[in-house]
C-alpha cells in the first residue's frame, strides 16, 4: 500500500548493472551560450554520414547550390538526404578523408562557399496535425535527419510504424552521460520549447502510451527549462542519477522503464522508441520551420582551445575551421578526439569534416588525455565485470579475443558489447579492452563475410561444374546424333544412287538389246530365214530382261529412302548379268547356225551377238562396281577399285567398239542391208567407250586427291608438284569431257547434256585444284624455289670428297650466303604463314563444331582442309629445318668445327680473359713490376685469342645467315 503510494508520487527510476563515474569535465563548456559556428571556405559533406546506404548525389561539380538545397537524395530505405549547409558552388565530388577511426577516404560533396548564405525557398508546416503521419515521415526523410546522439540511424525509419506496431513508451534521451559533452545540455537550457514541440511531433507520429524524458541529475538548469516548457502536457521527466553510461539506449530504457532489451533485440521488441533530444529539435526545425538538417550544436572543448563552448556549426565544416574559430593553440594539443573521451576516436587529420553525428570535439592537451600506459597482464581482479553495463564478462571476452578464439567470444555475447569503455577505464592493468573487443568484432564480421563469400563461391563452382558436365553430355549426344545421321545418310544415299544409276544404265542397255533383237528378227522374218522364230523368241527373252531391269530401277528408286541393302541390288545385277550372258550365248549360237546355213542375216546376227556381249560385259562391270560400292566394302577399296574397274570397262568397251566396227565393215563389204545400222551401233559403242574413258580420267584425278585424306600423316614429298600434276590431270579430264560432249552433241546423242554436266563438274574441280595450287604457291614460295633437302651436301667433310662438293665449302662466297639468308627468311615467313593458316582453319573447324547447323559433310570437308594446311605447314617447317641444318653443316665443313664448338671456344676464351683480368687487378697493388709485366702480356695474348674466337664465330654465323 505504502509502496503504491510512493510510486504514484515520486516517479520510480530503475537501475542498470555496472557503470562508472569518470570526472565530468562539463564545466569547461557549459557556461556559455550556443554561439554560431564559423562559415568555412569549404564544406565537405560525406555521402555516408548516417548508417545505411550512402546518399545519391543530385548535383555535379560546378553547380551552384543554395542553402538548404538537397544535394543528395536517400538511396534505398535506410538512407538520409544531404543538403547544402550554405550557398556556394560544388567544386568536387570525390574521395576525402572522413570521420572514421580508420582514417580512410570516402566520397564527399565539396562545396566552395560564397559567403552570402542564400536560402533556397522553403516553408514549414505551422500545424503538423493537419498532415498525415506518412507525410511527416517523408518530410523527416527528405530533411535528412539521422540520429544525433552518435549512431546516425535515419530517424524516418524509427518513426515510421507499421499498422500492427504499438509503441508503449517514447523515451527521449537527454542524458548526455559522457564527460566533456554539453551540447544537449545547452540546447535544452536555451531551446526547450522547440525541443518539446519536436517531441510533440514524435508523439503525433508514434502515439505512445507514455513519453519519458531521461535527464541526468548533473544538469539542473536543463531539467528546470524542460520542466517549464512541458508544463501541462503529458511528458514525464525522469531525472536519473549521474552514471556513465546511462545514456546508452538500452541502459536508458532500463533506467526509465525497467524493461530490459534482450540480447540481439531492438528497443522496438519491448515497445519502446528512443530518440535523442537533439533529434527532436531537428525534427521541429524540419517540420515547423522547413529547415533541413544543415547544422548542429557541437561542443568544442579541451585545454587546447581558448574559447571552449557550444557552437552551432554547419554540417561539413572541417574540424580545423572550428578549432581556429574557438581559438586553438596548436602547441597545446596532444590528442584531437571526435566524440566523447570514452567512446570517441582520435582523429588522424584535422581536415575531416564534422557531420550530423558529431557532438563534440576535444582538443586535449597531453596532460588532459595522457598517453595510455603500457598494457599489463590481467590480474583477474574482476573489476571490469562489476562495471559492465551490458552484464558481460569482459575478462573472458578479453582472453578469447586475445587468443582469436572467436567462437568462444561469441558464446560470451561479444556482439552485445556496447564498447562504452567502462571496463578499460577501471582496468588496473591498463588493458585496452575495448580495442580487443572491437578487433574481435571486426574479425567475427569478417569471418561471416568470408563464410558468405565461400558459400557463394561454392555455389558458383558447383553451378559451373554442372554446366560444363551438361555441355559435355550435350556435345557427346550431338556428336552421336551426327554420326547416326551420317551413317543413315550414307546408307540411304551413297549405295542407292550408285546402284540406281547402274540399274538405269542396265535397263537402258537391255531395252536397246531388245529393240535390236526385234529388228533383227523382223529382218530375218522378211527374208524368210529359218531361224526367224528363234530370233523372235530371243527378242522376247530380251524384252523380259529389259522389263526386269526397268522394274529393278523402279524398285531401287522407291526403296532408296528406306535404304535398301546394297546386297539386294548386287543380287539383282548378278541375275541380270547371268541373263544377259546367256542371251549373248544364244545369239552367238544363232549366228553360227545362220553362218553355217549361208544365211544372209548371219552378219547381222553376229553384230547382235557382239552387242549383247557388250551389254553383258557392262552389266558385269556394274556388278563389280556395285559390289565395291556396297557399304560392307572398305572405303579405300571403294576408292581404289573404280579406277581399275573403269580401266577394264574401257578396255572392254573399246574392244567391243572395235569388233562392232569390224563387223560393220564386213557387212558393208558384203553389201549387207544393215550396214548403216551396224555403223550407228558402232558409233554408239564408241560414245559409250569415250564416256567410260572420261570417267576413268575423272576417277584417276579424284583418286590422288583422296590419298592425302587417307594418310595425312605421310606428307607428300612435294605438295606443289603433286598439286600441279593433279591440276594437269583434272584439266585434261575436263578437256576430254568437253570434247566427248561436243562429239555427242554433233552426233545428236541423248547423253550429250549429261556429258556437258559432267564436264562442268570437272571444270569446277579443276578450278578448285588450280586455286589450291595458287594458295600453295603463295604459302610456300620458298618451298617451290629452294631445293628442299640439301641432298647434294656432304654430311662430314671427308678428305675423299669430290672436288665439286668441297668447292662451295672451302670458298663460301658472300653471294651464296646472301642467297641462303634470303631463302631462310623466305622459308621462315612461309612457315609462319602456313602455320597461321592452319591455326585459323583449325579454329574455324572448332567453331563450326560448336555450332549446330553445320552439317557433317561440311565438317569433314573442313577437317580435310585443316589437315592439308597442317601438312603444308609441316612441309615448310621441314624445309626450314633442313636449310638450317644445311647451314650448320656448311659451317662445320668450312671451319672444321661445328657451331657448338665455335661457341664454346669463344666462351672459354672470354672467361679466361676475364679471369686473368681479375688476377691482374688483384696483383696490381701487391706485386712487383716484373710480375705485372708478365701478367699484362699474358692478358694481351688472351685478349687476342678471345678476339679471334669471337671473330670466327661471328664470321661463321654471318656467312650462313644464321643470325641468332
Amino acid at each position, binding site marked *: 500500500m505504502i509502496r503504491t503510494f510512493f510510486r504514484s508520487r515520486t516517479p520510480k527510476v530503475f537501475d542498470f548493472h555496472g557503470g562508472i563515474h569518470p570526472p565530468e569535465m562539463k564545466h569547461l563548456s557549459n557556461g556559455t551560450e550556443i554561439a554560431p559556428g564559423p562559415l568555412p571556405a569549404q564544406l565537405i559533406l560525406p555521402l555516408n554520414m548516417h548508417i545505411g546506404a550512402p546518399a545519391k548525389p543530385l548535383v555535379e561539380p560546378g553547380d551552384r547550390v543554395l542553402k538548404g538545397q538537397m544535394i543528395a537524395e536517400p538511396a534505398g530505405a535506410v538512407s538520409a538526404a544531404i543538403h547544402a549547409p550554405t550557398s556556394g558552388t560544388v567544386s568536387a565530388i570525390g574521395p576525402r578523408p572522413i570521420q572514421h577511426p580508420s582514417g*580512410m577516404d570516402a566520397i564527399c560533396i565539396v562545396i566552395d562557399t560564397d559567403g552570402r548564405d542564400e536560402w533556397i525557398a522553403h516553408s514549414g508546416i505551422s500545424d503538423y496535425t493537419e498532415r498525415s503521419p506518412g507525410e511527416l515521415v517523408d518530410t523527416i526523410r527528405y530533411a535528412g535527419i539521422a540520429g544525433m546522439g552518435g549512431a546516425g540511424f535515419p530517424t524516418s525509419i524509427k518513426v515510421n510504424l507499421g499498422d500492427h506496431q504499438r509503441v508503449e513508451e517514447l523515451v527521449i534521451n537527454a542524458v548526455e552521460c559522457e564527460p566533456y559533452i554539453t551540447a544537449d545540455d545547452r540546447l535544452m537550457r536555451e531551446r526547450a520549447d522547440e525541443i518539446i514541440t519536436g517531441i510533440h511531433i514524435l508523439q503525433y507520429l508514434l502515439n505512445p502510451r507514455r513519453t519519458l524524458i531521461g535527464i541526468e541529475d548533473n544538469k539542473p538548469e536543463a531539467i528546470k527549462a524542460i520542466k517549464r516548457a512541458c508544463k501541462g502536457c503529458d511528458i514525464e521527466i525522469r531525472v536519473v542519477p549521474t552514471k556513465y553510461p546511462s545514456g546508452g539506449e538500452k541502459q536508458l530504457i532500463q533506467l526509465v522503464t525497467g524493461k530490459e532489451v534482450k540480447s540481439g533485440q531492438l528497443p522496438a521488441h519491448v515497445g519502446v522508441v528512443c530518440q535523442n533530444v537533439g533529434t527532436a529539435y531537428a525534427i521541429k526545425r524540419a517540420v515547423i520551420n522547413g529547415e533541413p538538417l544543415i547544422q548542429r550544436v557541437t561542443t568544442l572543448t579541451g585545454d587546447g582551445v581558448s574559447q571552449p563552448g557550444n557552437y552551432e556549426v554547419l554540417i561539413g565544416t572541417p574540424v580545423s575551421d572550428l578549432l*581556429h574559430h574557438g581559438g586553438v593553440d596548436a602547441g597545446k594539443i596532444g590528442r584531437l578526439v571526435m566524440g566523447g573521451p570514452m567512446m570517441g576516436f582520435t582523429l588522424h587529420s584535422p*581536415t575531416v569534416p564534422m557531420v550530423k553525428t558529431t557532438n563534440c570535439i576535444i582538443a586535449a592537451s597531453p596532460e588532459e588525455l595522457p598517453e595510455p600506459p603500457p*598494457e*599489463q597482464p590481467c590480474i583477474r581482479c574482476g573489476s571490469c565485470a562489476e562495471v559492465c553495463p551490458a552484464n558481460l564478462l569482459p575478462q573472458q571476452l578479453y582472453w578469447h579475443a586475445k587468443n582469436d578464439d572467436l567462437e568462444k567470444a561469441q558464446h560470451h555475447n561479444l556482439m552485445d558489447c556496447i564498447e562504452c569503455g567502462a571496463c578499460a577505464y577501471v582496468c588496473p592493468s591498463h588493458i585496452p579492452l575495448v*580495442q580487443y573487443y572491437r578487433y574481435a568484432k571486426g574479425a567475427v564480421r569478417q569471418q561471416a*563475410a568470408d563464410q558468405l563469400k565461400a558459400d557463394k*563461391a561454392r555455389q*558458383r563452382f558447383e553451378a559451373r561444374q554442372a554446366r560444363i558436365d551438361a555441355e559435355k553430355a550435350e556435345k557427346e549426344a550431338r556428336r552421336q546424333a551426327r554420326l547416326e545421321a551420317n551413317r543413315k545418310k550414307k546408307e540411304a544415299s551413297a549405295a542407292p544412287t550408285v546402284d540406281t544409276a547402274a540399274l538405269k544404265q542396265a535397263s537402258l542397255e537391255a531395252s536397246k538389246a531388245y529393240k535390236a533383237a526385234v529388228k533383227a528378227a523382223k529382218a530375218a522374218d522378211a527374208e524368210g530365214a529359218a531361224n526367224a522364230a528363234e530370233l523372235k523368241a530371243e527378242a522376247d527373252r530380251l524384252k523380259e530382261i529389259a522389263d526386269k531391269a526397268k522394274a529393278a530401277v523402279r524398285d531401287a528408286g522407291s526403296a532408296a529412302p528406306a535404304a535398301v541393302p546394297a546386297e539386294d541390288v548386287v543380287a539383282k545385277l548378278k541375275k541380270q548379268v547371268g541373263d544377259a550372258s546367256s542371251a549373248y550365248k544364244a545369239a552367238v549360237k544363232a549366228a553360227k547356225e545362220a553362218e553355217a546355213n549361208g544365211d544372209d542375216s548371219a552378219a547381222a546376227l553376229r553384230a547382235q551377238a557382239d552387242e549383247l556381249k557388250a551389254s553383258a560385259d557392262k552389266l558385269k562391270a556394274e556388278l563389280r562396281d556395285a559390289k565395291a560400292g556396297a557399304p560392307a566394302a572398305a572405303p579405300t577399296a571403294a576408292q581404289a577399285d573404280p579406277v581399275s574397274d573403269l580401266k577394264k570397262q574401257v578396255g572392254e568397251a573399246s574392244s567391243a567398239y572395235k569388233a562392232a566396227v569390224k563387223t560393220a565393215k564386213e557387212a558393208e563389204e558384203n553389201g549387207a542391208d544393215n550396214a548403216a545400222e551396224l555403223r550407228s551401233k558402232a558409233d554408239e559403242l564408241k560414245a559409250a567407250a569415250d564416256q567410260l574413258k572420261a570417267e576413268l580420267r575423272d576417277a584417276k584425278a579424284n583418286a590422288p586427291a583422296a590419298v592425302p585424306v587417307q594418310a595425312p600423316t605421310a606428307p607428300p614429298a612435294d605438295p606443289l608438284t603433286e598439286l600441279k600434276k593433279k591440276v594437269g590431270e583434272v584439266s585434261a579430264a575436263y578437256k576430254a569431257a568437253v570434247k566427248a560432249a561436243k562429239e555427242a552433241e554433233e552426233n545428236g546423242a541423248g547423253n550429250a547434256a549429261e556429258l556437258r554436266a559432267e564436264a562442268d563438274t570437272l571444270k569446277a574441280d579443276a578450278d578448285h585444284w588450280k586455286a589450291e595450287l595458287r594458295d600453295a604457291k603463295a604459302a610456300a614460295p620458298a618451298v617451290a624455289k629452294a631445293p628442299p633437302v640439301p641432298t647434294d651436301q656432304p654430311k662430314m667433310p671427308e678428305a675423299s670428297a669430290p672436288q665439286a662438293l668441297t668447292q662451295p665449302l672451302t670458298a663460301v662466297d658472300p653471294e651464296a650466303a646472301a642467297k641462303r639468308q634470303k631463302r631462310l627468311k623466305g622459308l621462315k615467313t612461309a612457315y609462319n604463314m602456313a602455320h597461321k593458316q592452319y591455326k585459323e582453319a583449325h579454329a574455324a573447324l572448332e567453331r563450326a563444331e560448336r555450332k549446330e547447323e553445320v552439317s557433317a559433310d561440311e565438317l569433314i570437308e573442313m577437317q580435310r582442309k585443316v589437315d592439308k594446311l597442317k601438312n603444308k605447314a609441316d612441309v615448310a617447317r621441314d624445309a626450314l629445318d633442313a636449310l638450317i641444318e644445311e647451314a650448320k653443316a656448311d659451317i662445320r665443313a668450312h671451319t672444321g668445327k661445328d657451331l657448338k664448338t665455335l661457341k664454346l671456344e669463344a666462351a672459354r676464351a672470354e672467361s679466361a680473359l676475364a679471369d686473368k683480368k681479375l688476377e691482374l687487378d688483384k696483383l696490381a697493388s701487391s706485386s712487383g713490376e716484373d710480375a705485372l709485366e708478365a701478367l699484362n702480356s699474358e692478358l694481351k695474348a688472351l685478349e687476342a685469342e678471345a678476339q679471334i674466337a669471337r671473330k670466327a664465330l661471328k664470321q661463321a654465323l654471318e656467312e650462313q645467315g644464321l643470325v641468332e
Partner: protein
Amino acid sequence: MSAVLIAVAALLALAAVFGAILGFASEKFKVEGDPIVEQIDSLLPQTQCGQCGHPGCRPYAEAIAEGEEHNRCPPGGQDTVDALTDLLGRDELTLDDDGAEDAAVAKVAYIREDECIGCTKCIQACPVDAIVGAAKLMHTVIVDECTGCDLCVEPCPVDCIDIVPVKPTLQTWGWDRPAGIGQRPDSRIEVVNL
C-alpha cells in the same frame, strides 16, 4: 529349473525387442552420404584454386576424408589446417605451402583492360565464373565473386592479369589487434596542418 527357463526366455524376449528397436532406428535415421566430407568442405575456403592438387575444394574434402593430409590448402592458411585437425582428430600439421606468400591477405584478379585481347582463355579457366567478356572484347573481373585463386593468370597469353590484394573499404575495415602486454596502444597521432 523353470525359473532358469523363465529367465532365459525373458532375456531372449528383451534381446529381440531391443534388437528390433535398434534395427528400426538404424533404418529410420540412416545418414545419407558421408557427413564428414560436408564438414570438411565447409571448413575449406572455397577458392577452388586447385593448389592442393585437386580440381576444387570439394574433391579435396573427399580426398581428406579418404586419408589425404589436410595441410595442403594455402588459401585457407594455418587456421584451416588447425580447424581440420580439430575436426578430424588427426596429428597436428603445419601448412604445406612451400613458404608461399601470406595467405591471410585476400586477393582478387585484376585485368589490365587496355592490354586484354579478348581471348576468353581466362574465362574458361575461372572456376567460379567471375570473369565476364566475349571473344575479341575486353574482359573484366567481377571483384565480389573473385576468389583470387590465381588460375586465370597462367592461361593469359598477354599477361594482363594481376593478382592484387584487396584493399579494405570502410565496410570491411576492422580495428587492429592491440599490440599486447608491455606495449602501449598506438593511439597517439600527431596533429599537423593546423
